[in-house]
């Protein structure tokens, strides 16, 4: 009998293996196996680093040759009904193999020792129940998970589809909103499945959960991952899930698989969370979420919420480790001295009281678990603080960038297919009544070269209407320094009245000098003219009429620096393709301008690339019948997308088109957002490390309290109650750390905001570190940290609940 079992085991194993090989061979022939060798699949399994190492030794080529060799040795698939034969056969073999294997293990094992006196008596029911596999639980877990995935996909596609139709009215659901709603539903369903499953079996049922995730959960992300590679999948499934792939690609940095697996991981986490909640809530026989004695006991065990402890951790978070430690040591030493002196004096009168005081003084030492608790709280605090600070600073940069972009750029533009928009006045009148529109101005945009005596540079030239440009961009503001006019920065009006341009004085260094006195006075002392400089003709430039006043031009500060010009100087604008048709194609066209002003936006790209001239000058220079388009400004930037759409509809579409600022700078903001996400994930690692500390702490607590757990169980605490006690302990550490981190992080952010951390403006183009505290991401940081600590304490808490009452009662 025993030999047969061994035979079953070996045979079953071999069959299952052969089946697997057949499946793999079948898949290899369809060239899908290569997909699984990607570093993603292996990275997930923990072999990523190893594979990278192999690849770096040039094994990648080896793999390809081996793969090609295998594929070539396999007979080519004939297009017959049998093409899936080996896959189906392999599947069959695999199942049969596992069946045999299970037979090899389920038969009665030969007795190891002689029969006991208990032979023939009924088995203890609890032992009989012990191996029970709950099919209902498996169903709840598996179907819950599958339903979560499918419902999420379905709802997302539905919402996005709706959104696309409803988009015309401007009220459609964006991808992100739709995803969030669908994701929420998915999480809820997965958690619900876990909850019901665990409540059904009354235990955690890890085998069921594993099977559910592997067999019910995995196929969906696998199919999604294969979708783009396998033709018929794409044809039958992919077309319906285009939007999913699109969003997932955004989530996963252009690798949709990453997005799928991230979501899959989140769903699995939700299942685990729900399953734990289900177990904890119902293990005492009914739904019981109260935490009365549990938190009473937990409080005594960890004692996190002591002012002294919280204060010292807070001090460490705010001031770093060394200063509080020094302070602590000094205070401790002082306390000791004072206390001992007091005791000595007391001892002269009452030895009894003195010995008692001494005893109390010595007892103040800390236990190892108390130290660990402190460390864990501190760790979580550091993680949350770092998250909050870094995310806030990044938000600050983003806001800064946004305001700079919006300062120089408009919130939206109206363009026209073809070249110009001669009817711009009518268009402006037409869209003027749009609610929420704050300003509009026509513009011409083109690329030119700008040359001065000193240098030459490629630039974007923009023809503007000085009257209305201020309603859309901050250009007038950028022409002032600290809100005041100055001689070295010129004036916007000089663009149309170049005859009024006053030359700026020169500092000895040749740099434009700022007027320290400020003052809006127009009658600056006339600098003595260095005769000849202005009238010097430039090379290749047509000699200007001496009496004719040159038109004005505004340059950015960086550009002016590199061209070595200042207000009143002359620059030459060259349009490479603007001139008449010559024998070798279009001739360059050039025209001299006089610098009417130098603006400073604080954004290097603009200050070094953009120049402004009067709209009519620009139309004349480029031979245009009208402006390129209109720039728009809205009262609320966040409405830009909606309002540009509305204007588009108002203009009845073609030949007009509109774009908003988000679309114009899409890549920039996408990159920023991605960077923030990556930073968030990286910083969460700190929290995860802290969570490791919490695991260690709670495990230590469990080990330390084993006997007490046994006693508590003897007093009638259920398994769920024990789990709740230790979960509460972990959660207390997490909440204390999270709150401390929150306060410290906000404190740091306020410090950075109010006091400021200076940055080298040459490098960062911004004087001080910007911060912007965003409520959502701040709260999210804390919630994620607390959630992670909660998850971290699940395992030790379960360990604690496994302690048998009798076990603790015997160890003396």
């Amino acid at each position, binding site marked *: 009998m025993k030999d047969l079992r061994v035979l079953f085991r070996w045979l079953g194993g071999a069959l299952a293996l052969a089946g697997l090989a057949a499946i793999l061979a079948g898949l290899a022939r369809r060239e899908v196996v290569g997909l699984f060798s990607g570093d993603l699949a292996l990275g997930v399994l923990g072999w990523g680093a190893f594979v990278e190492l192999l690849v770096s030794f040039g094994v990648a080529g080896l793999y390809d040759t081996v793969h090609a060799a295998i594929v070539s040795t396999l007979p080519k698939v004939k297009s017959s009904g049998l093409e899936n034969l080996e896959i189906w056969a392999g599947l069959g073999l695999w199942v049969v193999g596992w069946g045999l294997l299970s037979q090899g293990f389920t038969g009665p094992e030969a007795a190891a020792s002689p029969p006991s006196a208990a032979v023939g008596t009924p088995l203890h029911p609890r032992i009989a129940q012990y191996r029970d596999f709950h099919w209902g639980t498996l169903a709840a877990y598996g179907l819950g998970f599958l339903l979560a995935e499918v419902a999420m996909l379905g709802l997302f596609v539905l919402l996005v589809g709706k959104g696309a139709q409803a988009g015309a009215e401007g009220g459609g659901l964006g991808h992100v909103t739709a995803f969030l709603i669908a994701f929420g539903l998915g999480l809820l369903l997965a958690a619900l499945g876990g909850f019901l499953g665990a409540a059904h079996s009354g235990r955690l049922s890890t085998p069921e959960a594993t099977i559910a995730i592997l067999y019910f959960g995995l196929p969906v992300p696998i199919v999604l991952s294969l979708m783009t590679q396998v033709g018929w999948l794409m044809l039958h499934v992919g077309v319906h899930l285009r939007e999913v792939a699109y969003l997932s690609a955004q989530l996963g940095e252009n690798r949709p698989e990453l997005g799928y697996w991230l979501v899959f991981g989140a769903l699995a986490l939700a299942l685990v969370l729900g399953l734990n909640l289900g177990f904890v809530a119902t293990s005492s026989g009914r739904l019981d979420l109260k935490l009365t004695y549990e938190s009473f006991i937990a409080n005594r065990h960890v004692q996190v919420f002591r002012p002294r402890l919280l204060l010292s951790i807070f001090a460490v978070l705010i001031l770093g480790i060394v200063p509080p430690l020094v302070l602590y040591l000094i205070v401790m030493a002082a306390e000791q001295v004072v206390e001992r002196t007091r005791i000595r004096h007391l001892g002269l009168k009452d030895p009894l009281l003195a010995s008692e005081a001494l005893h109390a003084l010595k007892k103040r030492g800390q236990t190892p678990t108390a130290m660990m608790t402190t460390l864990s709280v501190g760790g979580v605090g550091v993680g949350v603080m770092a998250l909050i600070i870094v995310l806030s600073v990044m938000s600050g940069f983003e806001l800064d960038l946004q305001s700079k972009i919006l300062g120089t750029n408009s919130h939206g533009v109206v363009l026209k297919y073809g070249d110009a928009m001669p009817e711009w006045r009518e268009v402006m009148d037409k869209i003027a009544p749009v609610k929420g529109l704050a300003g509009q101005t026509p513009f011409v945009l083109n690329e030119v070269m700008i040359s001065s005596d000193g240098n030459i540079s490629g630039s974007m030239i923009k023809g503007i209407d000085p009257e209305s440009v201020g309603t859309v961009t901050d250009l007038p503001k950028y022409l002032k320094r600290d809100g005041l006019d100055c001689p070295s920065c010129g004036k916007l009006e000089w663009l149309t009245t170049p005859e009024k341009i006053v030359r700026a004085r020169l500092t000895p260094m040749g740099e434009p000098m700022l007027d320290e006195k400020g003052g809006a006075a127009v009658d600056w002392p006339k600098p003595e003219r260095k005769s000849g400089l202005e009238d010097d003709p430039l090379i290749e430039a047509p000699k200007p009429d001496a009496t004719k006043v040159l038109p004005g031009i505004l340059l950015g500060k960086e550009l002016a620096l590199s061209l070595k010009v200042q207000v009143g100087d002359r620059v030459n604008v060259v349009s490479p393709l603007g001139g008449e048709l010559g024998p070798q194609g279009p001739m360059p066209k050039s025209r001299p301008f006089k610098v009417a002003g130098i603006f400073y936006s604080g954004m290097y790209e603009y200050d070094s690339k953009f120049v402004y001239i009067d709209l009519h000058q620009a139309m004349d220079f480029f031979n245009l019948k009208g402006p390129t388009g209109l720039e728009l400004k809205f009262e609320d930037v966040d409405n830009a997308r909606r309002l540009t759409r509305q204007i588009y509809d108002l203009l009845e579409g073609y030949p007009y088109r509109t774009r908003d600022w988000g679309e114009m700078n899409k890549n920039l903001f996408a990159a920023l957002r991605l960077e923030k996400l990556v930073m968030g994930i990286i910083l969460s690692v700190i929290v995860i490390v802290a969570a490791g500390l919490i695991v260690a702490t709670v495990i230590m607590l469990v080990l330390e309290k084993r006997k007490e757990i046994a006693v508590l169980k003897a007093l009638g605490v259920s398994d769920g109650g024990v789990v709740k006690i230790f979960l509460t302990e972990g959660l207390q550490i997490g909440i204390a750390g999270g709150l401390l981190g929150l306060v410290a992080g906000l404190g740091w952010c306020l410090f950075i905001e109010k006091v400021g951390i200076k940055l080298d403006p040459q490098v960062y183009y911004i004087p001080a570190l910007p911060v912007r505290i965003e409520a959502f991401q701040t709260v999210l940081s804390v919630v994620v940290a607390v959630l992670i600590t909660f998850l971290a304490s699940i395992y030790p808490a379960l360990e604690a609940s496994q302690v048998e009452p*009798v076990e603790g009662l015997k160890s003396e």
Partner: protein
Amino acid sequence: MTPFLELKDVHKSYFLHGKRIDVLRGVSLTIEKGELVSLIGSSGSGKSTFLHVMGTLDAAASGTLRFEGRDVFAMNDAELAELRNQTFGFVFQSHFLLPEFTAAENVAMPGLIRRQDRKACDLRARELLDRVGLLARADHRPGELSGGESQRVALARALMLKPALLLADEPTGNLDPATGEGIHQLLREVNRDLGVTAVVVTHNETLARLMPRRLRISEGRVVTAEG
């Protein structure tokens, strides 16, 4: 009429280093409501094991245990927890108080676990401590109590929820004869006044002789003690 407590053919063995130690070899026993039972036996004869199995703290290998007709061995974790909390009271061979809590809190713990009001529990705990003569020590931690005092606190804790069945494993082990006698006196009072059924393991034959029913455990079986 269903008996109060009924054990039938209960087996329990330990396996250690490949050797089997058969501690309980088919124990059958009925205890009626209101009985006061003493259990004696030589050291290592399995008294504690028997008490633990009876109190559901340890799982037997086979056999049945019926409490008021209910099959205790078939109960799930939640039902067992409730049974231990509300129906059984334990006093262990060594006291096993919770070190972080004061004597009063230790005594009140079963009530708290039953989610009774904290105030009411505290009052009752102090009443019980008064009864075992330890009201003055109510706010001491276990580390600040003597062994005998701890044992008395443990007894008070076992009585907190007026258990139907009190299982005491050598409650007088650490006590001087006079105090030990006091504890037994208390047990008899509890049995008489509150109608608590009690099984008391003891080494002290003289004290055991004062109990109405005497059992002896030997060779894995429980028999009625003679004398």
